[in-house]
């Protein structure tokens, strides 16, 4: 499945000393224990100078074979449905003299960096090079909906606050009943004196606020006019 656009000319020139590149995918246990599970649409692409472009499909032994690669600097990318593979730079350079074979070298390369910024060296060979590339990640296509989660729901601060106050409301009377009389008296004393809940406390004042009287221009009353025994009860 070689896409030969302008390749024929280049090939003719280099037919005598064609460079062969073999890329294999080894088993890489946590991510891809068995490379033979890769779908047959997995393919490798070598992008060379304008017009030079090779595309080969995966073989039975999980390799990609580029039988003859012309002299140039290439970007090698592996495309698979389920995995990411790191991009590589592959250079096929001219032999020193006619009798020798071309040199193939491969490095990791980094997208968005200048082309000369090479990463780890993957290997080099004369006339032939075998590379191993491991997948760098699995493709996660799906977004889970944030479904209803009872633990997460209970953990949220609002629910926690509501629960604590529920415990206070329902639990306090029993707690008070079970207290021995001295502690109870002490506690009641403490409540009276506290600025928030005591009879002269802010909360009580607000609760017993006489809106009608205030609107009528009366001064703040001591709260005796408030109706409803439940509100002014003292415990």
């Amino acid at each position, binding site marked *: 499945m070689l896409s030969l656009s302008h390749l024929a000319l280049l090939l003719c020139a280099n037919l005598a000393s064609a460079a062969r590149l073999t890329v294999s995918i080894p088993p890489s246990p946590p991510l891809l224990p068995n490379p033979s599970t890769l779908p047959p649409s997995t393919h490798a692409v070598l992008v060379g*100078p304008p017009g030079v472009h090779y595309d080969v499909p995966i073989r039975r032994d999980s390799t990609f074979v580029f039988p003859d690669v012309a002299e140039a600097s290439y970007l090698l990318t592996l495309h698979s449905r389920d995995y990411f593979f790191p991009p590589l730079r592959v250079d096929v350079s001219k032999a020193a003299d006619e009798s020798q074979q071309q040199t193939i070298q491969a490095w990791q390369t980094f997208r*968005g960096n*200048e*082309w000369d910024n090479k990463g780890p060296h993957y290997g080099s060979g004369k006339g032939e090079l075998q590379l191993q590339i491991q997948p760098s990640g699995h493709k*996660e296509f*799906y977004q889970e*909906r944030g479904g209803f989660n009872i633990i997460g729901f209970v953990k949220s601060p609002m629910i926690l606050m509501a629960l604590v106050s529920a415990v206070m409301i329902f639990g306090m009377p029993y707690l008070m009943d079970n207290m021995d009389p001295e502690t109870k008296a002490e506690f009641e004393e403490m409540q009276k004196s506290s600025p928030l809940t005591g009879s002269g406390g802010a909360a009580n004042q607000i609760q017993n606020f006489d809106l009608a009287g205030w609107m009528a221009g009366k001064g703040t009353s001591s709260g005796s006019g408030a109706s409803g025994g*439940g509100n002014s009860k003292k415990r």
Partner: protein
Amino acid sequence: MFLPLIAVPLLLAGSALAVFTDEAWNVDYHYALLGHPKQSTSFFHQPNPSSRASLIFTLSEEGVLGAINPRDGAVVWRQVLLPGASAHNASFLRAGEGQDVVISGIGSQVAAWSAGDGRQAWSLDVNGPVEDVEILELVDGKDASGAKDAVALSGGDHPLVQRLDGATGAVKWQHQLGGTDAPYQVSASTTEVFAISLHKTILGYLKLKVTSLDPVTGHKTDEHMLSSENELATAETIVTVGANSASPIIAWTDSAHSVLKVNIMGTKGISSFEIEKHDGQAVERVELHAPYHLNSLSHFLVHYQTATSHWAEVFHVDLKNGKVGKAYSLPKLSGRGAFSTSTSDANVYFTRVTRNEVMTVSSASHGILGRWSVDGFNVAAGEGEEIEPIHAVSDVSVRGDTVSAVRSAVLLSTGDWVLLRDGSPVWDRPEMLASTVSATFASPAEMETLVQQLEAEAHSNPIQAYIHRVSRHLHDLQRLPSFILSLPQKIVQGFLGTSADGGIATDSFGFHQIIACATKDGRLVAVDAGNPDKVLWNQQVADLQPGQIWQPSVSSPRGGVIEISSKASAGVQYNASSGEQLASILPIDLAADQTAQEVKYTMHDGGLEATVDSSTTWHFMPTSGERIVSLVPRPVNDPVASIGKVLGDRRVLYKYLDPNLALLVTANDAARAATFYVLNTVSGAILYSNVHSGVDVSSPIASMLSENWFTYSFTAEALGDSPKGHQLVVGELFESLVANDRGLLSSTANYSSMQTGTEPFTLTKIYQIPEAVSKMAVTRTRQGITSRQLLAVLADSSAVVGIPYGVLDPRRPINRDPSKDEQAEGLVRYSPVIDFDPKWYLNHQREVVGVKDVITSPALLESTSLLFAYGLDIFGTRLSPSFSFDVLGKDFNKFQMLATVAALAVATFVVAPLVMRKQVNSRWQFM
């Protein structure tokens, strides 16, 4: 209420735009297609020799090799061998008996593919077009269990016959066919390899030259000419060069189809048979069906087809004396027929598929072993169109002397590929859609009738309108009983969340749009986007000669109507829902004609010319050495909700909005540069231009323009310290870059691009992307309020990705973190690389191969845009770039809501007496 409002921009900023688990496979649909299968390259074959299960293999006209599961018609695997192939490309597919590979030959490549999983076993470039591939079924004795070798015939300047090792693809021997004869086919018997080439005589007639080769060494053992008479004028009347049978044969007819001549390969004798005439009609087509196995009986069937009927004759080859004799004939039946050959041990069976029945006969005698009637093929076809079988491949299961079952994969005249099991259709693959060249969305005609009625009421006088309305409502009342009856079911389904989307008539969200596809072979096929499992209608709209190419364009001029036009003909309109052809007299919209002036664009001498009222207004001439690659105008229907961009501090940047914008791309092949221009299409002014050097102009350059922004992508070569790879450029046009300032336009209420030449301020950003983009599109919604998504087709990953605009935004700050205000807008710091998040893959795990174009259409819901991608595969989905804010999606848990209400109700009833008691108690205690 406040909380969700704050949450929305936060969510938008994150990369949460994704395919949800519960929506994947449900809202999207995909036809994994192969293209029109060819008779010669389709067969049943067992991928694993030890098991009986077989797959259907085919190498289609579109150059796609695939394996189909005969049980459900699903693609097991496929490989695109030659992108952009057509029926003209010669292609071959062979499978050896008991082999686990299939061997393909197309273009200049011979390759072996693992039959079970579709991985390549080997491939070989044969330095010339492949003319034929055969498998050597030699009984060597040495490697009987190993892979069988292949023989390949290649053309070009030096025609070659090569024997390829079955395991590695290495060339074992090659034989050069000298001379100027055109190589035609290769064939093999148990003892010899035959190469057949066509020799042209001085008078222009063809002679068949048979070269016999030794299969072990490749040396020539014999060579002779056939057909001394002037019968063969073209290669088209050669019926077959049979292969891989006990006695391969060559058969041909004269151009009038009056005589059939048969030669047993390796001998010089020619048997001649008169083709009898039926009803005085000329025989249009002669086909020969022979078994493909060495050890099967050497019987063959010849199929004759006239315009209205077909019949067949079965011949036997006597191996001892090398004679061919007619055994029996199958009766003439009207219509077209398809014959297929299957073998079981040495026995040969012929299966005949006609529009009414399927029957199987043995090659030995004319007794019918199995006969099943066909009650229709269960595919959509045009009004009054007779569905005919074109060709078939069959798998026969034989029990004793009778045929117990027969499965036939039949290509129909509608372009569907169906499997008939004992005469009843099991599955159907709409392969005609694989050659879609143009497509459009159209709203269903049912939806339009209400619109028309309302319009009628609006335009008539009040009394008439009132009567019309009352009668319409009375008419609607007739549907009330059925509606009430269906109500309980609807409610239950609504609770359980199992409610299937209703039909077209009850579509309130606009998801049921009709997609009309014009195919390469002159058919118009409609699919309902809301119910894509079935083709709605399918009919022949153009009568094309074989090999004739048309360039149709499909559009929807108004709701419920599809218009198809091509260069040769004016538009013909069809009803979108039924496919009925409408009157070809087009209503003329007077209002539109008076106000708008048309600007026409034509390519002229490599430049672009715009004319208004037949006078040229402007020219665009690319500089020397440049050619125009593409011109992408702003979509006609491109609503914009806001004329400005609101910044984080509530100030506004005004967008440069002009309905007459276009993005023009030119390429310079010599300088390897690409230039991108934003043009005003009325005045011809260049509003923005940019040159990129080191561009691979032979790879696709995708471009797109919408609203006030444009984008393009290309593959760049490393120059100096620049990176190599694929790049995506985004540009946004503003009236001014100062907030709250409209620049020169601030003082004018109206403006014309003919008079004032205001130039936009353009911000651009360039990003590195991991792979090439072959086509771009943009989502469209009804009002344009929803944010847009760039849709990019990735050919290498076989995917369509939806890139949120926030990722591409050219206003992303460089070298600094975004300020508070920018954060509020959702801007993030610029990074030069955009990695396509797999969650952006709209096709998720599906592989959408060979997409040529993507079209989008707004749904009735503002949040939703419909997408349809075509090319080889058909893929469609619904997109909500800003989430489904106006509809309760699947994420809305109805059960949870009901449970909460119920829990609250229970709590109220339980707590109420408690509270009551407490209040009573407290009063008593206080007193």
